[in-house]
C-alpha cells in the first residue's frame, strides 16, 4: 500500500478534505437519473431483434461503471482499488464471453 491515507475516509486527519473530494449530492441525483434512463433504454432494446445482446451488455457495463465510479467512489480513491476490482472483472468477462461459444 503505497499511500494508505488516500484509501481512507472519515475519522482521519484528512477526513474533511477527503469528504470534499467525494461526489456532491447533485452528482448522486444525476447518476440516479442516468441509471433510470439507461434501465428504460434496456427495456426498449430488449425488443430489438438485431444486435440486442451486445447492446444490452454494453448498457449494463455502463450502469455498473456509474455505480462503481460515483456511488462506490472509485473515481475519488487510490487507483490500486480500481485495479483490485477491474482485473478480476475483466478476467471474468473474458471467460463468460468465451463460454458463449460452447453453449
Amino acid at each position, binding site marked *: *500500500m503505497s499511500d494508505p491515507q488516500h*484509501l481512507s475516509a472519515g475519522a482521519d486527519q484528512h477526513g474533511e478534505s477527503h469528504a470534499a473530494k467525494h461526489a456532491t449530492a447533485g452528482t448522486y441525483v444525476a447518476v440516479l437519473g442516468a441509471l433510470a434512463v439507461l434501465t428504460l433504454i434496456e427495456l426498449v432494446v430488449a425488443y430489438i431483434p438485431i444486435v440486442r445482446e451486445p447492446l444490452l451488455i454494453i448498457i449494463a457495463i455502463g450502469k455498473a461503471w456509474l455505480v462503481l465510479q460515483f456511488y462506490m467512489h472509485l473515481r475519488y480513491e487510490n487507483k490500486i482499488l480500481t485495479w483490485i476490482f477491474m482485473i478480476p472483472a475483466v478476467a471474468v468477462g473474458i471467460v463468460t464471453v468465451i463460454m458463449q461459444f460452447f453453449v
Partner: protein
Amino acid sequence: MQQETALTQSVSHAPTAEHTADHAGHADHLQVASFTYSVANSKMAMWLFLASEMFLFSVLIIAYIIARYAHPEEHALLNVPLTSINSFILLLSSFSVVWALSGIQSGNQTRLLRGLASVIVLGSIFFLLMMYEYAEMSHHGVTLSHPFGMAFYALTGFHGAHVLIGLVYGVYVFNRAFNGVYTKENHWGVEFWGLYWHFVDVVWIFIFTVVYLI
C-alpha cells in the same frame, strides 16, 4: 500491514510518567495514523472481498446461460415487468445509501437516519418481490429439481442471500446511527456497509440483463 502493527504497538503502550507533552502529541499523531492505516486496510480488504465475490457470481451466471439456452420455454415464464420494477427499487436503494452517507459527511444525522431507513425498506420490498416471483415460477412448475430452475434459483437466490445479509447489516448500521455513533468526522461504518450494498446492486445490474432481458 507491518507498518500498521508497528504503529498500533506504539500506541498501545501506555505513556509513562516521564513522557513529556511532546511525547503525548506524538502518541496522538500515531493514534490518528494507526486509525488511518486501519481504515485503509479494511477498505482494501472489502474491495478484495468484493473482487472474490465476482468469481462466485460469474460461475453461477455461466451455469444459468447454459441452462437458459437449453430450456427457452421456461425462460419465457420469467416476470420481466415485475423484475424491472425491482431493478428500479434496488437502484433507488443504492442512491439512498449515498444520500445517507453524504448526509453524515455534512453532519446531518436526520438525513443519515432517513437514508438508512429508506435502504432497509427498499431492500425489503426487493426481497419480498423476489419471493413472490419464486412462488409464481414454482406455480408454473419451475422448481429446484428442474435444470432451468436449479440454475435460475441458484443465481438469483445467491444474490437474494446477499440482499438479506445486507439488510441485516443495514439494520445494525441503522441502530448504531440511531445511537449517535456516526459523526461528521467518523462515519467509516456507513461507507463500509455502503460498499457492500452497492456491490449487490452492481451484480443485480448484470443479473437483470443476462437473466431477464437477453
